[in-house]
C-alpha cells in the first residue's frame, strides 16, 4: 500500500496554483465575494439603503426554526430533489450505457450531441410546451385516447407528477452525459473478463460496470440534486396550487415582500443542508464504488 501512496497525485499547492488560480479567482470575484455580501445581509434587520434603519440580528435564521412552514417545505424540496435524482438515474444511466457500450461509430457522437441540444432552448418555452402535453385535452390525453379503446382522462398538469416530469426532463441530460463520460472510458476487455470469469450480465453490471462508472453517477447526481432542491420555476408553473416549495418561498421573500435578509438567510440554510447531505452521501457512495 505504501508504494501506492507515491503513485498518482503530486504534493503541494504551489505547482497547482497556476492551473487553479484563474478559475478560482474568477469564482471569487463573481460569486464568493458577492455571496459573502449576501451572508452579511442575512444578519441584518433591513437593507442598508435609502436611509432605512438597520441592525444586526439572528432573527432571520431564527425564523426558520420558529416556523414549521420552512422546515416542512425544505423537507418537501429535499424529497423532490431525491425523487428527481432517482428518476434521472433510472432513465439516464441505461441510456448512457447504451450510448457508451452498445452504439458504435458516428451515430454515437451524433446522439450524444442530440441529448444536449434541448438544453439550448429557453427553459420557459420548454415548460410552456409541457403544459400543452400534460393538460386535460392536451397532447398526451388526446394521443392516449386515440390509441386506447376506452376513454380515459389524463390531466397531469398542475400536480406533483407534472413537476417531476418537468424537472426530470430538464435535468436528465446531466445524468446521461456524466455517466456516458465514465462508462465510455471503461475498457471493454474488463467486461469481457468479467463474463469470462463466469459472471452473468447482471453480475458484471453490478460488480464491474457500476462501480467503475461511479464517479459519473456521483457527479450527475450532485449536478441534479443540488439545483432541484432550490428550484422554483418548474414547481410554480407546473405544480399549480401544489407547487409551493422551499425555492418558491425564497423567491417570494426577494420578489414579493422585498425582504432580502430573510430570503438570504433561507438560502444559506438551504446551502448548508445540501452541503451536509453531499458530505454524508459521498463516503457512502464511494464505498459502494
Amino acid at each position: 500500500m505504501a508504494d501506492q501512496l507515491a503513485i498518482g497525485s503530486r504534493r503541494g499547492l504551489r505547482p497547482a496554483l497556476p492551473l487553479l488560480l484563474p478559475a478560482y479567482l474568477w469564482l471569487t470575484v463573481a460569486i464568493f465575494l458577492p455571496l459573502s455580501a449576501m451572508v452579511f445581509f442575512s444578519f441584518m434587520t433591513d437593507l442598508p439603503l435609502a436611509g432605512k434603519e438597520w441592525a444586526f440580528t439572528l432573527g432571520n435564521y431564527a425564523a426558520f426554526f420558529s416556523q414549521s412552514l420552512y422546515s416542512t417545505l425544505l423537507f418537501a424540496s429535499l424529497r423532490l430533489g431525491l425523487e428527481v435524482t432517482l428518476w434521472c438515474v433510472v432513465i439516464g444511466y441505461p441510456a448512457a450505457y447504451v450510448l457508451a457500450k452498445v452504439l458504435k461509430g458516428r451515430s454515437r457522437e451524433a446522439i450524444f450531441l442530440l441529448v444536449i441540444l434541448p438544453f439550448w432552448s429557453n427553459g420557459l418555452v420548454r415548460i410552456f410546451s409541457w403544459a400543452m402535453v400534460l393538460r386535460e385535452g392536451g397532447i398526451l390525453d388526446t394521443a392516449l385516447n386515440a390509441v386506447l379503446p376506452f376513454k380515459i382522462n389524463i390531466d397531469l398538469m398542475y400536480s406533483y407528477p407534472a413537476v417531476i416530469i418537468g424537472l426530470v426532463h430538464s435535468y436528465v441530460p446531466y445524468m446521461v452525459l456524466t455517466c456516458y463520460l465514465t462508462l465510455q472510458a471503461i475498457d471493454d476487455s474488463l467486461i469481457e473478463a468479467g463474463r469470462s470469469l463466469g459472471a452473468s450480465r447482471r453480475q458484471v453490471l453490478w460488480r464491474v460496470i457500476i462501480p467503475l462508472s461511479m464517479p459519473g453517477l456521483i457527479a450527475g447526481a450532485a449536478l441534479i440534486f443540488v439545483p432541484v432542491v432550490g428550484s422554483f420555476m418548474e414547481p410554480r408553473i407546473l405544480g399549480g396550487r401544489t407547487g409551493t416549495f422551499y425555492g418558491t418561498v425564497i423567491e417570494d421573500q426577494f420578489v414579493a415582500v422585498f425582504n432580502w435578509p430573510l430570503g438570504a438567510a433561507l438560502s444559506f440554510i438551504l446551502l448548508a443542508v445540501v452541503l451536509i447531505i453531499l458530505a454524508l452521501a459521498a463516503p457512502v457512495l464511494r464505498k459502494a464504488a
Partner: protein
Amino acid sequence: MRMPRLTAFLTATAVFVSAFTLAAQAAEEVHVLNWKGYGADEPWAVANFEKATGFKVVNDFFNSEQEMLTKIRTNPGLYDVVMINAAFNDQAMAGKLIQPIDVSKLSNYADIAKDKAGSPMLNHDGKVYGVPWVWGLTALAINEKSFDKPPTSIAEMWDPAHKGRVIIRDDAVEAVQFGAIASGQNINDIKDMDAVKAKLTSLMPQIKTFWSSENDWNQMVASNQIDIGTYWSGSADRAKTHFKLPVSLVIPQEGAVAWLDAFSIPVGSKNVAGAEAFINYMIDPKFYVEWVTKVGAPVSANTKAVDALPEDAFNRKVMGSPDVAKRIQFQAPVTDEQREKYLALWQELKVNVK
C-alpha cells in the same frame, strides 16, 4: 406566468444599484415613468403630443410599485411625470418624492369625477399630489363556455361544480383582500383575519392553479381549463374584444377591489410646464377615445372622456353604472407589516393545500 413579478423585482434591483448614472436632460424633454404598454408610450399618442406642444417625450418604465418608488428615490431630478397608483401616493408624498400640482394649469382637470379628484389618497393639506387618470377593477371573470348565464355572487368560486377549475392570482395582498370581500369585510380594514383565512382555506381545493399575467389567464381560457377566476377589468375586456376569447367580467354583488392610477410630478422636475402639459394631454377625452379604440384601456377618471365613448362601450355601460360604483371598494395603502403578514398567511395556505 410568474415572470412579471420576477421581472419587476429584477428591474427594481438593477435600477436601485445603477441609480447614479444620470442622463443629461434637455429642457424641452418630458421624462415620463410608467408601466410599459400603458397608454403613455403609445407611439401615436407620443407623436400627437409632441406635435401639439413641441415637447419631446422620453419614456421609462417600471414593473412594480416598489421599483417605481426606488427609481424616483434614486434618480432625483430625472423624471417629470410619474404614474403612481393612488394607494402608493401617500408613501411617495411622505418620502418627499413628489410635489404639489397646480391644477389650474390643467384645462381638463375640472372634468374629472369629483369622487376621484377629491380622493383623500391624492390630496394632502389641501394640495393636490396626484391627478386621477384611469381606474379599474380586480373582479371575477368567467369562461363563457362554462356558464349559461353569468353568476352574480363571489360564492360561485366555492361551488363544488367548479372544483379544480377556479383560478386566482398568486398575490398575497390580492388574495387576502378577496377573502375579505367574500367574508363581507372592508378590504382596507380587515377586522376578522380568521374569517378570511377560513374562506381562503375552503377555496384552495377548488383552485386549478395560480395566475400571474394576462397571458396565463388567456391561455387557460383558450384551452378551456378553467370556469371562473379573479381578473382585471381591463384585461378581461381586452381578452374579449382584442383576442376574441370567451371571457366576460363579473362584478359580484359582494363587491370588488378597485384601483386608481394617477399622475404626479416628482420633486426636482426640470420641466414642470412640460409635465403639466403631458398630464393634461393624458386626461384629454380625445386621447382616451383613441386609446380605447385602438388598444383597449381601463376607465378614464375624466367623466367627459367616458361620455365620449359609444353608448354600449364596456367602460361606459358596465363600469360606469351607478350600481357598480356602489359595490366596489378602492384599495387603500398597505403597510410593509401588513404585506408580510398577508404573505405569511398566503404561504401557509399554499403549503397546507398539498
